[in-house]
């Protein structure tokens, strides 16, 4: 593992757009600098062994490009509103779409900031939970929001989306919503779907393998 130089060296790890505290995620990306070439699969297995249960390394890809973080253009969130019927959620989502801009305030390191949630919104719909309740999960009949927001500064977080829905339609769940990030990556040509941010690194690898083979 590589360390920064200087008075107190730190391991070189960078977390791109880390999900906020209290949310689940299936799409977090971490860049780790190493001092010698390592086998990606072996590294994935070693990391998995050291990480606590519930934190799983899905894949390790060797970086071949320098603009990885820039490719995380959008984030897809699944927001389970455990006590809200789909119709009510749909009304709120419609109100958000029809607004020109919806500003919410959040305290950041540099004080209170105003964030336009509507401007960052690229996709957003409501689904109905059809499965019966599992553990503390949602019961059938409650609303699930699927929202894609563009990566802007400051980041529009799930909390901000919920604050925007409260502001435009008075949507206020009593049960804390369960929030999961489902995807991060470049926005596709349609401007709505999220692509694989590691694709370029993989393609390069395939090219290299092909050229080595030839």
């Amino acid at each position, binding site marked *: 593992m590589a360390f920064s130089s200087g008075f107190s060296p730190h391991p070189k790890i960078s977390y791109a757009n880390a999900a906020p505290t*209290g949310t689940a995620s299936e799409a977090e990306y971490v860049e780790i600098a190493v001092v010698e070439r390592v086998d990606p699969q072996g590294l994935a297995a070693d990391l998995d062994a050291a990480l606590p249960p519930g934190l799983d390394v899905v894949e390790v890809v060797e970086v071949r490009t320098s603009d990885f973080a820039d490719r995380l253009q959008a984030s897809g969130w699944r927001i389970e509103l455990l006590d809200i019927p789909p119709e009510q959620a749909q009304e709120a989502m419609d109100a958000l779409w029809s607004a020109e801009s919806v500003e919410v305030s959040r305290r950041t390191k540099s004080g209170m900031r105003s964030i336009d949630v509507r401007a960052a919104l690229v996709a957003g719909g409501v689904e109905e939970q059809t499965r019966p309740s599992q553990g503390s999960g949602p019961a059938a009949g409650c609303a699930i929001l699927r929202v894609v927001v563009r990566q802007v500064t400051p980041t529009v977080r799930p909390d901000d989306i919920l604050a925007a829905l409260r502001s435009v339609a008075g949507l206020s769940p009593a049960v804390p919503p369960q929030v999961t990030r489902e995807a991060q990556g470049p926005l596709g040509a349609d401007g709505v779907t999220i692509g694989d941010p590691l694709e370029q690194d993989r393609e390069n690898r395939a090219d290299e393998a092909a050229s080595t083979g030839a």
Partner: protein
Amino acid sequence: MTTTSNLGAPESVFGQLEQVLPLVAKPIQYVGGEVNSVIKEWSDTSVRWVLMYPDAYEVGAPNQGVQILYEVINGVQDALAERTYAVWPDLEALMRERGIPQFTVDAHRPVRSFDVFGLSFATELGYTNMLTALDLAGIPLHAVDRTDDDPLVVAGGHAAFNPEPIADFIDAAVLGDGEQAALTITDLVRDFKAEGSPGGRGELLLRLARSGVAYVPSFYDVEYLPDGRIRRVIPRNADIPWRVAKHTVMDLDDWDYPRAPLVPLAETVHERMSVEIFRGCTRGCRFCQAGMITRPVRERSKAGIESMVERGLSATGFEEVGLLSLSSADHSEIAPLTTSLADCYTDSQVSLSLPSTRVDAFNVDLANELSRNGRRSGLTFAPEGGSERLRRVINKQVSEEDLIRTVTTAYSAGWRQVKLYFMCGLPTETDEDVLQIARMAAEVIRVGREVSGRRDIRCTVSIGGFVPKPHTPFQWAAQLDHETTDARLALLRDAIRANREYGKSIGLRYHDGKPGIVEGLLSRGDRRVGAVIEQAWRDGARFDGWSEHFDYDRWMAAADRALAETGVDVAWFTTREREHVEVLPWDHLDSGLDREWLWEDWQDAVEEVEVEDCRWTPCFDCGVCDQMGTHIQIAPVQIAPATIGVRE
């Protein structure tokens, strides 16, 4: 306690907890999942412990005592141990609102479903957090109200050497080293349950008390004299011992715990791995309770330490190792040890630290060795007393010449900052003694600038109020009232500021005297203080070790109410000097120290007579080794299969 073994495993409360985690600060401290944490099957075990360090996770998680017992108990095939910590007031409120009980961070099981609830008290300021945990767990606050469905509540740690203020709330207290005691209690509980728990809770407590493994306060009556002093403390039954002794683990190489230290996911106060290099200290500093109650010195061998460092690092990935003890530079093999460890890890990212405060040039040499990579920021020394006279009183055998020579060595070796620890309110202290600190700090800066040729060197003076502790020569001493403490600290601050040449290079860190008075009340209190703790807790006292939570006025109001009928008050417990004949609340608890020796040492203190360290001079009969059947173990050599301690 007895019924759960016949039922299935208690249900995890994580589902309920998960709902409120988004609403509280630092939720990660409640989720567990640390590297090297252990979750055993409930049904595979017959004796289940929950261990608590009664402070926030960030303070409690690195605690060595809890980590050691966690491994020792989990190492027993049919026993398990999980951990719980004090929850912050934000989560406490939500738990009360939603009926979530105090839980373990390992498997998130309710604390009440365990057999033994062990609490480690490094400081008395954790007492109110114990009450919160009991209450949230649904365990009656008072031991007398508990049923067979409640765990045994057992206190340990240094504060347990006077558990009288919490006698109402605990079932038992274990004095001294916990490793073997925890195993003995595990055996007792296992046997008792295997027999079908005959006689219930009362019988189990009797067995604990009779065996001598623990002190069971409910089997002792305290009688008082008309003036409020204790007349005597007597066992209720003939088969209950008059005195209960501390436990001493010998041959530390045989107890190489923790083997796989916990690696917290949340940030904690000590982001490092600790390896205890020896236990006990015989320097004889008269204010130091730790040095008095952990005798004799028992060293771990150099080879034993090296293997613990190596194994611990590979089990954890920590990047810093602290060589832990009460005075680490005193280990007889410390120089070869630090050299070999530094050789071993010099090319890695692993750094070594020596939390030692010995004031001598040798200590600087060690620090130099441990900072080969050139990270020389600050060194800490503890002269403790400001004047030569006061240092004789407290038996801190350091002359001003020693100190100046030490800091000269440090500054010329490239260290830029020196931190000096002192205490205020020591017995016989005057304003003049404390003002000497300002003069000494100025002298440190003067020589520092001279030898380093730089003006950017600094000296930080850190000073705290002295609290007399049980089982020390100062157990009879009057504590200084907080008004005088604060006035002296103000004088010191003004004196440092007034020095136009050096004052700006001297930093001063101090705390006001009020928390020390509450600590003093809890340290030397008797059973009557229990009502004060409960009242303060009912009035909202939590996290009393944290200045942002501590409320002196709340404690004093609670004391006024709770002590109203007793004829004694806070001053009686704190600022009053005791006489030789007075029965002290902890006299029936045996730390091995001979009471007469302690009294003579107290008289020697007042007369400014020093006493040597028995590691290097003949025994001076403090009483511990004879009373406890122990001896000093210096540079032990592993000779298979038995370990032999070499006495010097």
